[in-house]
């Protein structure tokens, strides 16, 4: 809604302008830890073509907008995940894919698995399932897109993961 008469309509338009390209070119980091990584691969495959949404994989965190934590994260790995997250440029988004990333899932009683990836990095969207279907991942990507459209250019979104610990 853009009205010349109202003073604070401009930021909305600016947000839209900034967020729409972001939303339509989500580059995700190719980072697969466990079972969900296979579904991530298959989502990038021909059946559920993620490229339709402008989402392509990147092998380096410096070029990625979205960190898909696909699978369980162990304590040994936790440090690396946080380092990957810190290397990503702002604005960055995190999608916890699968039960293990959500809450530890079936390894919640284990001695070596982080009970949910939100213990180490801030998570934007949780996707349940073990492992989620490619279409479910698609749906999560659409949820991320909705989330992106809510962003304000004036508000700094996330901080470093250091704050969480």
């Amino acid at each position, binding site marked *: 809604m853009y009205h010349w008469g109202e003073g604070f309509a401009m930021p909305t338009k600016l947000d839209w302008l900034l967020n729409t390209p972001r939303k339509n070119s989500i580059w995700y980091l190719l*980072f697969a830890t*466990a079972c969900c990584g296979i579904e991530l*691969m*298959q989502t990038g495959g021909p*059946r559920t073509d993620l490229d339709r949404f402008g989402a392509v994989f990147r*092998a380096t*965190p410096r070029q990625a907008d979205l960190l898909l934590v696909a699978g*369980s994260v*162990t304590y040994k*790995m936790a440090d690396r995940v946080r380092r990957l997250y810190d290397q990503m440029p702002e604005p960055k988004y995190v999608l916890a894919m699968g039960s293990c990333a959500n809450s530890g899932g079936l390894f919640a009683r284990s001695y070596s698995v982080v009970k949910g990836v939100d213990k180490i990095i801030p998570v934007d969207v949780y996707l349940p399932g073990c492992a989620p279907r490619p279409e479910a991942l698609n749906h999560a990507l659409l949820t991320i897109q909705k989330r992106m459209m809510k962003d304000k250019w004036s508000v700094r979104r996330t901080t470093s993961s250091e704050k969480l610990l």
Partner: protein
Amino acid sequence: MTQLILEDQHGETTMVNMGPQHPSTHGVINLRLLLQGEVIAKIDPIVGFLHRSIEKLGEMTPYPGFLPYTDRVDYLSAMFGNQVYCMAVEELLGVEVPRRAEYLRVIACELNRIISHLIAVGTMAMDLGAFTPFLHAIRERETVNDFMERICGARINYSYMRIGGVPRDLEPGLDKDILKFLDRFEKFIPEFNRLITGNEIFVRRLIDLAVIPAADAISCGLSGPNLRSSGVDYDLRRDRPYSAYPEFEFRVVTGEGYRGQTGDCYARYWVRIDEMLESAKIVRQALLGLPEGDVKAKVPRKITPPKGEVYSAVESSRGEMGCYLVSDGGEQPLRVRFRTGSFTAMTVLPKIVPGLMVADLTAFFGSLDVVAPEIDR
């Protein structure tokens, strides 16, 4: 990282960390390389980034409840994890699985082997820079995934088998669909070969590279396609018969007589391509000769095997998957241990890799087809 294997001529060595987040390490594995120029002087594989303590959880979970965990031992061939665990418990219990259930297990396992090898050859081509074959492999995999969904209800973590059999029979009409698929699949493999296997550039990058001699392969405990490609004619399905495999005719593929030497990267690749066709043959035989009868033996709801221990092994798509199960007569196992093919395949790296180029390491590592969770469990 204390001593060098190669002569340090210029006194210049570099340490490079490959992984744990690296697109060609097939999961979270850290390969610590000591380089002299472009040549790898020493390799120190660091694993354990995905050690999820499945074995400890097995000691904390009742026998039937542990079954879903066995899927996650090797998610690319989850069916074999199910089977090896069920076989171990059944052997302790003394339960005889109905013949129809054994056939259904074989069908599910061999379909699983096909899609696991598809990922293996697809990702190997992708490591070498060819992205198209990967997409073709994934497309075929999706078709089988649909069958898996109809057989057991899930796409990768199947949880299909139960102690004493399988929970349900095939859905009507599914056998015809699978047979139709197999016809198509046998045409797909030649097409895939035209696409990538016969590609001169691809072949030249793989032949005579990183040859694993048969003696090393046996000593390092390689198994499955990796062992057979070194020329060792050993297949658990034939030589340590289990389930219904003695009733089927199939050829044990060994890596001899193709291009290059026995035991090189191309042989490992080719064995997987050939094994897919053999698996398709087994599935066809099993579907056509599917016996009538029950699909699940009678087992009590509360499973308490007698005291004892057992080592069961199946030929998984990544080699021998074994389950060492110790029971103390209680509701939970005293010890569950999974012996996996990828874990042993990693031990061959320090022997073979020194002397290779870094670019060849990705090809070699891809040809071993290891997956991280199977190493770490």
